[in-house]
């Protein structure tokens, strides 16, 4: 991308941000919670594959949130299925992510 084009979209982004009401406290809070949860799930999986209930207990988070994040990270290729434990599947960090 040329420097001219880069400064063009930065100007457009600044105006877009103003039009949309900026980075509100609510958005900041959402982003922080989102990033923190992803980080926590990744960290917890570094010690080995886990089921969703095991992760939820370790992270002390509602298990439906943990389900959502595990599936989100799986969708984007960071987490893979790693065997079964009874009626649950285990999830692990993809080798390249460790």
């Amino acid at each position, binding site marked *: *991308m040329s420097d001219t084009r880069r400064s063009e979209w930065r100007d*457009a*982004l600044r105006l877009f941000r103003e039009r*949309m009401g900026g980075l509100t406290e609510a958005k900041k809070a959402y982003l922080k919670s989102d990033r923190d949860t992803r980080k926590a799930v990744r960290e917890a999986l570094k010690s080995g594959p886990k089921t969703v209930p095991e992760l939820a207990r370790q992270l002390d988070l509602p298990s439906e949130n943990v389900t*959502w994040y595990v599936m989100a990270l799986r969708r984007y290729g960071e987490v893979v299925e790693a065997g079964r434990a009874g009626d*649950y599947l285990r999830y692990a960090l993809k080798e390249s992510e460790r």
Partner: protein
Amino acid sequence: MAQIKDQYDGLVIGSGIAGMQAALDLAGQGFQVLLVERQPSMGGVMVGLNKVFPTLDCSSCICTPRMAEVAHHERITLLTYTEVQRVAPLDPGFRVTLLKKPRYVIEEDCIGCSLCELACDVFVPHEFEYGLGARRAIYIPHSNAIPQVAVLDPEHCVFDGNCAKACPKDCIDFAQLPEEYTVEVGAVIVASGLQLTPMDAKGEYGGGKLVNVMNPLAMERIQSSNGPYGHVLRPSDGKIPKSVAYVQCAGSRDASIGVPYCSRVCCMYALKQAVLIKHELHDTDVTIYHMDIRAFGKGYEHFYRRAVAEGVRVVKAKVAKITEAEDRDLILRVELIDEGSRVADIRHDLVVLSQGLIPGWHSGAALPTKEARDGFFEVPELATQPARTTVDGIFVAGVATGPKDIPDSIVEAGAAAMEAAMYLDRTRAGRTAEVSATGA
């Protein structure tokens, strides 16, 4: 984005199966068609389904070829992420005002590479997956989306510019604004489809509150090979369910929630989903609690008998309420009709509410047509002219007039296209320069 002309022979509103078929049937006769879709990609509800009843054909496998045909048709202009603001009668023909919503992406330059999506650091519940899966603040709608073009959601955007930095085609455009277009058209076909009765319509069932009380379209997604879980698992904790319950007439045949009619397809989609759960999870019990089983179409009664033969339990019982037990299991209080109306509390670990169908769009002042008492588009001569609305020149197809299955929607689309063609020949409304299969 395609060039929008000033004039079209036909406008089709909605690009689900009925809209696509109507557009193809009209364009196939030589007419120029403008197809308008309010979502960022085509396909309506059908593109997100797993398999269709009673054949168990893969839904997107039969839907996506039509989507591709529409997208590449020389006589169809496809406008996505666009809403119809007003259709004003010109007698004959209509003046149509459209509002194209900004994607913040230059459509004709985007190659659908997803690098913007992967660079975005905000995870958001994905509407296409009914909240069970994730997308980013800028995202390609789904793997089968046409157009396969990104769209930015300003509500979740944190304005960090990561998408623009990552885009190899330099096609993120933060300066985009909504654009209004005015076109003249000859005939209009409304194919605005369906939405489900809201999950929280009946408070006693816990829909929208209890995590393991599922939306049936969400179940379609988790049964799909490109779905959010990869397997049928329950949302609260990813457990493989051992005992699944379907609650029929959950959002229909119920005057107390404002949906007194039967939604026609719920018995069949519940049977279909139940059979597919049994195929994937051989040891899992699936029970359908019903008031009646309505298996009305070709091959449907046979499919019902097959489902029972494959072990799906079909129990005549009215579900009074659903409460949550420990471990997020559900307790269904049911009146077992075939057991002398005995009341029982039955435990399951996953429940699907067979929600009914309500109109996908209430057009209000946007269209001069009338709404029937049930909220769908009124068809004044239902028995003899099922594609005609209360306005000459505006035709209708699919669930826009009332609940129906895919074959009936396709047949109605053909009927609407034929009516539209006859209207165009009769009135010579909105005729474009290069047109007419009849040579007239």
